[in-house]
């Protein structure tokens, strides 16, 4: 039972984790992207469509990343170059993606694809308890946690990470050191969108092998909330996203055991927990929040109003 719930947590949390890591990169550079939901949706459709056309799910994942990046690029252009309000721009990108995917996705509803299959890792997958939880997944799921660790390493142990964080904290410092903050923001937002696109791809070509309108069901917005839960740390993001996945898996498992706990109540848990965490560490959280984000969350709409 516990084994099944934990395995389920990883299965249903992975797509959110990709999106959450992408949003972490973006927010580290000082850009909030509510369009993460749109990047996920776009990624889910593009991956499904490309897989249906080429028969190759890896091509699908690439297409998903590309589609996610394109929607994020639009957000980057609006907020960096055109200095638009970040929350508004993100919502608009989300709305655009809902429209575009509904429009082009209609013909793919009944397509059958060969997706990314579960590939148990030899020997490791046979370990009792741990094996089924950790080592019987598709390739994207295996990549999610290493990616989070790599991002953590990148943020704190490499020059690029330093530049990225500098742009998110004090872009005048980054500028003085000879880096163009806008270019860094473009790169961060686009990379974030690509990761969200991969999250969408995981949903459509690895997890469900299906495309339906609105299939992300708000997972991209959840990812944005979980970035806050994780206090902009890729490692804590792992915890947050699998906790979210766990709530889904737990409610289904409890039902199957005949235990009458409302699934809706369980679905609330991740959000209430995030609020609770915010409560406990409100001051610390403020400290952890990239300086550039403060402007967005505190009503100026965009980082550059304070800088220019």
């Amino acid at each position, binding site marked *: 039972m516990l084994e*099944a719930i934990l395995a*389920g947590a990883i299965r249903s949390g992975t797509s959110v984790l990709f999106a959450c890591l992408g949003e972490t990169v973006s927010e580290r550079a000082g850009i909030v992207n509510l369009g993460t939901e749109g990047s996920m949706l776009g990624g889910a459709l593009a991956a499904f469509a490309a897989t249906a056309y080429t028969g190759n799910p890896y091509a699908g994942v690439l297409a998903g990343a590309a589609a996610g990046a394109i929607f994020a690029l639009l957000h980057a252009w609006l907020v960096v170059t055109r200095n638009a309000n970040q929350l508004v721009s993100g919502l608009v990108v989300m709305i655009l993606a809902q429209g575009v995917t509904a429009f082009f996705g*209609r013909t793919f*509803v009944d397509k059958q694809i060969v997706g990314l299959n579960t590939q148990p890792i030899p020997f490791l997958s046979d370990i009792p308890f741990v094996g089924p939880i950790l080592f019987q997944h598709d390739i994207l799921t295996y990549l999610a946690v290493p990616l989070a660790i790599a991002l953590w390493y990148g943020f704190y142990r490499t020059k690029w990470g330093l530049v990225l964080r500098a742009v998110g904290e004090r872009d005048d410092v980054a500028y003085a050191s000879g880096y163009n903050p806008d270019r860094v923001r473009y790169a961060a937002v686009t990379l974030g969108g690509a990761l969200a696109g991969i999250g969408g791809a995981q949903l459509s070509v690895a997890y*469900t092998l*299906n495309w339906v309108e609105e*299939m992300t069901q708000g997972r991209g917005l959840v990812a944005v909330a979980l970035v806050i839960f994780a206090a902009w740390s890729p490692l804590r993001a792992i915890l947050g996203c699998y906790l979210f996945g766990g709530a889904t898996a737990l409610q289904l498992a409890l*039902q199957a055991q*005949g235990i009458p706990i409302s699934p*809706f109540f369980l679905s609330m848990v991740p959000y209430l927990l995030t609020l609770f965490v915010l409560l406990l560490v409100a001051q610390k959280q403020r400290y952890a929040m990239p300086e550039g984000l403060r402007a967005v969350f505190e009503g100026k709409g965009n980082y550059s109003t304070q800088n220019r």
Partner: protein
Amino acid sequence: MKTRKKLLPFLSLVLIFAFVISACAAPAAAPAPGAEAPAAAEPTEAPAAEASVTEAEMAPGMGGSAIGFLYVGPCDDYGYNQAACAGADAVGTAFPDMEILEAENVPENQEAERVMETMIRQGAKIIFPTSYGHLDPALEVAKRHPDVVFLHQGGQKTAENLGTYFGTIWETVYLSGVAAGHMSETGKLGYIVAFPIPQVLLNINAFTLGARSVNPDATTTVVFTASWCDPGQQAEAVNSLVAQDVDVITQHQDCTKTIIETAERAGVMSVGYHADASTLAPEGWITGSMWDWSELYAKIVASVEDGTWAGGPYSGNYRTGVSEGSVKLAPFGKNVPQAVQDEIAALQAQLLSGEFFPFEGPIVDQNGVEQIAAGVRLSVGELESTNYLIEGVVGTIPQ
């Protein structure tokens, strides 16, 4: 500060006036101002008054140039909507002069009212709101349009100009339960459903009865997703059931593709619902229940068009089933032994002749309470108020 604001309020006030004026213009342009205020409420009154004038020449629903169909999902979902769309196509073929207006992904709330109104404005006098949750919006629209006939799929409420139809699909669900009972090795079956409405509960009960008729120890584990089609939830529901040793999975969802494909990939068997999805699971497909609405839809439309609908069978809660071909058993999968196929064919013949009735008492619910006494055969209407799960079902009705 003040000067810069001058133009803005002015412009906006103009807009407010536009808002209010068009609000007032609306009733003037509408056909029957005041007469249809909700205080006049009961749907029966308005049509009755109207009928006395026009009955001689034209009954409700006649004389339209279009027929409207509303679906809650897309038309090729390997499921409920696909079956309904196929029915609409058949109506288009049978009535080539009629325009078929179709709307997919219509939510089960007031938005459905607007879609129906738009169809009526485009000349529809017959409307098929096909999803369960379209019923109450349809009743609202029916009050406003006594000259339009509404035909709801699966509901239990009627009005002067709204009838319902459905099929006793639990007959074939029972048969596929028998097949599942034979095929399952673990004796654990899984049922992924959306909402605990009577149709759903009846199907779960029928499936379980069928399985337990050949394997008395079989159990059905039921999982509610609170959505007709959410692939993410569906995939996880399958995985969750498989983790509990379930080896046959069936469903009452609108879209069935994710569940059947995920079951196939997990190496467990599947039983379909709504449409033939055997191509999705070449190994694990057992059989399934399918709708064939083409004949029924055409018959209903014909009765409306020739003025015999009102007072006829289709103006109430019309129920059909295997006997009329609206409900069918899907083809068997390649791994189902011939003996099992023959047994089910024989059972279907008994069912058709009335010799056999799946819900003949005694039927005992999960709590050991006898719900149907020995030897009693409830009517279809009585069965459709089912609010319990029978013995052998694991999982509870969410309250």
